[in-house]
C-alpha cells in the first residue's frame, strides 16, 4: 500500500516533467539505462540494432573462440533478446523480457578470453554499421561491468 502511494506520488512528479518513457526498468537488465536516447539514435534506432545483431551473430559463429557457444538453434532467440536489452540500456523505449545475466550464463564456463572475444566481435559489427566509436564506447561501458555476472573462470 505504502508502495502504491509512493509510486503514485512519484509518477505525478514525473508526469509534470517532460518525460517520455515511464515504464519501470527491467529487473534483469544487468545495468542502469542511459539518461537520454542520444546514443540509441547513433545506433540507428531499433532497426539499426536488429541489423547490428544479425552481423554480430554471424561474427560470433565465424570466430573460433565464440563459435562453440553460439553455433546452435538458439541464435534467433539470443539476437532478439540482445536487441531488447541494448534498446532498453540505450533508453530506446524497450523493456528487456529475458533472463538475468547471471542465470542465463551459468554453466557456460565463460572466461575473460571468451568475454573479450565477444566484445571484439560486437565492435566489428558496430563498425560495419558505422556506429561512431564514442557511441560504441558508451554502450560498452554499460556492458563491460557485466563480466562480473557472466564470467565463471
Amino acid at each position, binding site marked *: 500500500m505504502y508502495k502504491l502511494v509512493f509510486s503514485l506520488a512519484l509518477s505525478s512528479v514525473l508526469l509534470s516533467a517532460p518525460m517520455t518513457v515511464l515504464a519501470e526498468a527491467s529487473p534483469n537488465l544487468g545495468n542502469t539505462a542511459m539518461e537520454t536516447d542520444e546514443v540509441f539514435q547513433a545506433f540507428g534506432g531499433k532497426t539499426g540494432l536488429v541489423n547490428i545483431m544479425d552481423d554480430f551473430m554471424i561474427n560470433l559463429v565465424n570466430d573460433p573462440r565464440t563459435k562453440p557457444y553460439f553455433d546452435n538453434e538458439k541464435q534467433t532467440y539470443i539476437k532478439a533478446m540482445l536487441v531488447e536489452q541494448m534498446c532498453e540500456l540505450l533508453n530506446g523505449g524497450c523493456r528487456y523480457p529475458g533472463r538475468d545475466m547471471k542465470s542465463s550464463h551459468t554453466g557456460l564456463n565463460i572466461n*575473460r578470453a571468451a568475454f*573479450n572475444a565477444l566484445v571484439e566481435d560486437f565492435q566489428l559489427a558496430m563498425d560495419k554499421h558505422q556506429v561512431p*566509436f564514442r557511441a560504441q*564506447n558508451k554502450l560498452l561501458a554499460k556492458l*563491460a561491468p557485466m563480466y562480473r555476472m557472466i564470467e565463471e573462470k
Partner: protein
Amino acid sequence: MAHSLPSLGFKLKHAVLLACLAASSSVIADTSLSNKLLLTGGVSQVEGAAGGGLTPWAVIGGYGTNDEIGANVHYTYAKTGDYKLDSYGVTVGFYDRVELSIAEQKFDIGNLRNKVTAGLGADVIGRDTLDQTIIGAKVRVLGEAVLDADSWLPQVAVGLQYKRNHDDRFIKSAVIGAKSSDGVDLYVAATKLFLSQSLLVNSTLRFTKANQFGLLGFGGDRHDNYQPQLELSAAYLLSKNIAIGAEYRMKPNNLRSPANAALFGGQKVVDLDEEDAFDLFVAYAPTKHVSLTLAYVNLGNIATVAPVGANYGTQDGVYASAQFGF
C-alpha cells in the same frame, strides 16, 4: 653479474630482432593467446614496463588474459637536440597478474664528448655511450582498468625496476659524481579507463635515486636518498587502434658536479641540473601483434658544459617505438 650483463645485452638484441621477424610473419594468423582488447596492454615504456612512453602503468604487458601468457619485444629510439637513446627489450605478462621485463639502454653522448675533448684538450669522457640494463617486475594487486566501467576504482599495481649502469667509472668520476652505479626504483601505479569518455588516465608514484633514468647513475652530491616522484599520463582513444595522449614525469635533481668546486672555483661549469620530462604521443596498433608509438619528448637539461661550446639546455625531440607481440 656486472661482467655478464653486457654480453646478455648483446644476446638480447639478437633475440629481439628474431622475435620481431617471427611476430611480423605471424601477423595474419591471430593466435588465441592474445585475448586482451586492443591497446589495453599499453605499450612498452622506455624502461621496458608496459605503460605509456615515459611511465609504467598498472596494466600487465602483452595481450594475455587471466589464463594466458603474453609477451612482446620492443625497440625505441629517441633523438633530442644533442643526445640519442637506443633501447630494446622484452616484456612478458603472466596471467594478467605478473609482468617481467628486461631492457637495454644505450645513451649516445658522442657529441658532448667531442666538444669537451676539443675544449679541454683531453678526452675526459672517454666513451661515446652510457649503457644500462633494467630488469623490471610488476604485480597487479587490485582492480580491472578496462571492464570496471561502473566504478571509479582504478587498477593498481606495484612494481620495481633494478637498474645497472655499465659505465660506473665515468658516472662516479668527478665530472658527474654519482654515488652508485646501480639502484632500484619502486613504484605504485593506478590506471583507469573511463570507457564512456574514451579516456585512459594513469598516475604513478615512483621512489627513486636515479639520475636521468639511471643513465647518469644513482644519487649525487646534492641528494643521495630515495625521493617520491609523480608521473601522470592521459590517453584519448580516437578509435579502437589509435590513441593520442600526454605524459609528465618528475625526475629527481641529485647531481652537482664535484668538478665545479674542485676545478672551477664553484662556478657551474658542468651543469647537471635535472628537470622533469613530458611527452605528447600517438600510439597506433594495426593488429594485436604490432604497436607503434611516435612522440614529441622533452627531457629538460641533461648535461651542459657551456665553456666548451656544449651550450645545450633543454633537450627535446622525437621518440619512436615499435613493439611486436605474441
